[in-house]
């Protein structure tokens, strides 16, 4: 369980996925990617972990991932094989609401 902070960058322990926290709930979150707890970017995850077979849908660069409650939002900055989940529930890609380009 981790207290997430907007702007924090995290990496998967079992694939190449990296994310940045856009929106975080006030409470601690059990955030996983590929079935294993994520780590802050720059820290070394423990060796020997393997991607979980039921969390291999992958992540896509530039997509935003949200939980059902809508209080957790992550931006995928590097894609990978694992899929993201919070408290065991898979995060889903947030639909883009494009604004007209202003510059």
């Amino acid at each position, binding site marked *: 369980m981790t207290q997430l902070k907007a*702007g924090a*960058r995290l990496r998967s322990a079992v694939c190449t996925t990296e994310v*940045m926290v*856009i929106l975080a709930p006030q409470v601690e979150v059990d955030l996983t990617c590929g079935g294993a707890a994520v780590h802050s*970017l*720059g820290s070394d995850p423990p060796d020997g972990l393997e991607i979980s077979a039921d969390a291999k849908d992958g992540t896509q*660069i*530039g*997509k935003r991932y949200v939980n059902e409650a809508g209080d957790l939002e992550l*931006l995928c*900055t*590097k894609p990978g094989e694992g899929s993201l989940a919070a408290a065991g529930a898979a995060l889903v890609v947030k639909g*883009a*609401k*494009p*604004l*007209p*380009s*202003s*510059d």
Partner: protein
Amino acid sequence: MNLMMLLEMASSGMGERVAVQNEGQALSYAELFRAAGHAAERLKASGSQRLAVLDVSSLAIPIGVFASAYAGVPFVPLNYRLTGAELERLLAEISPAMVVTDPERVEALNALAGIDAVSRDEFIATSGPDPSGEWPMDPDEIAVLLYTSGTTGAPKAAILRHKHLVSYILGSVEFMSAGEEDAGLLAVPPYHIAGIAAIASSIYSGRRIVQLPNFSAERWLELARSERITNAFVVPTMLARIIDALGERETADLPHLRALSYGGGKMPLTVIERAMKLLPTTDFTNAYGLTETSSTISLLGPEEHREAASSNDSVARRRLVSVGRALPSVEVEIRGADGSRLGPDERGEIYVRGEQVSGEYLGRDSSVGADGWFPTRDGGSLDADGYLFLEGRIDDVIVRGGENLSPGEIEDVLLEHSAVADAAVVGVPDEQWGEAVAAAVVLRSGHTPTETELKQWVKDRLRSSRTPERIEFESELPYNETGKLLRRVVRARLLETP
């Protein structure tokens, strides 16, 4: 949070696409990423605490923005028209600094203490050992120092931190949302916030940037056609010149131009209406923002333009002169002189709050309140549907006998007169009223209305207190190069002519 994250994503997600081009030179996202890394290593080795660019648009601008982010030093785009004592004062303020510039200026700048001047081509071609691949992660580091135009006084440097610019991009642009064929024509100078914002948002969306270093309407039209430009941003004076260059044509013949956004100053209704006729299939977007807010905070979108232009309803029509509604990531409210929040259609000062809002200047206390709200010093009002209407700078308000008069409102009425091509209204000292309303007016050729006739025109439409006591006819009004009216020059001229 660091701007480099945006470029790293672009480089890994669409590395082979062209990121930016200028005349015959071009860089892909992957090449821009590498060039920024090499320039960052050079910057770090030089011991410079800032990276300034004193030059027109070239590939050195995007390389410089990201090299600075990579090296963890502020990027400082300077107005290339600066010379002499004014320039030396700014350079002394930012030294020790690396300054990328025109080859002809290198020698003279290198003679200044703490300045390491490099020609643009040498900077673009920087090579050396492989870059570290690491950059600072602190979101509070300064990304850009932007000297504001200083239409009311000496230039001051607005501070934009990585968190402000990255928040702006993430709040307004979707990654790789541009198609492979998309191209944006970048004609605003690099020392303008719109020039910096355009680099960041184009790179994140994957839209090729085509730089136009010295704006002329003819060259803009030429590039828009030859480069199949799909998107462009212009300031009002640019659009007015483009329309002039098109003369009596019935269409602009820019079949690829899908979207044209504008901002940076007040757009005359006649100009935007003519532009919409010349470009019937182009989407128009009006963007309002300030340097201190990392560019756009509100937008009037394409549908709203079309509705307003084709509507007979006065509320909808009036929206064509509004700057639209706040971005979803930004809050806007209007406050009175006593700081209280005002209701719909009440006029006061525009306040803004959001992650992209900096509101800070170098060497001064932040003007952002403890509650996060930033007073813009722009006057305005919000209608019941949240559309924002601008009224000019609070500091330009004319106080006549205790009554606050907005120059913009009087200018709008003057501009509705068929003989008036341009108008500026300012307050001049007056013994009886404190300030009196004075106007400088540029007439359309072939028209010769009298001063009395124009005064009566205003009086018939506004209260008599808003009628100019003096109207001087001039051949043109003073603007800075990004189209901001220089009111202090207008006022000085009026005071010179008794």
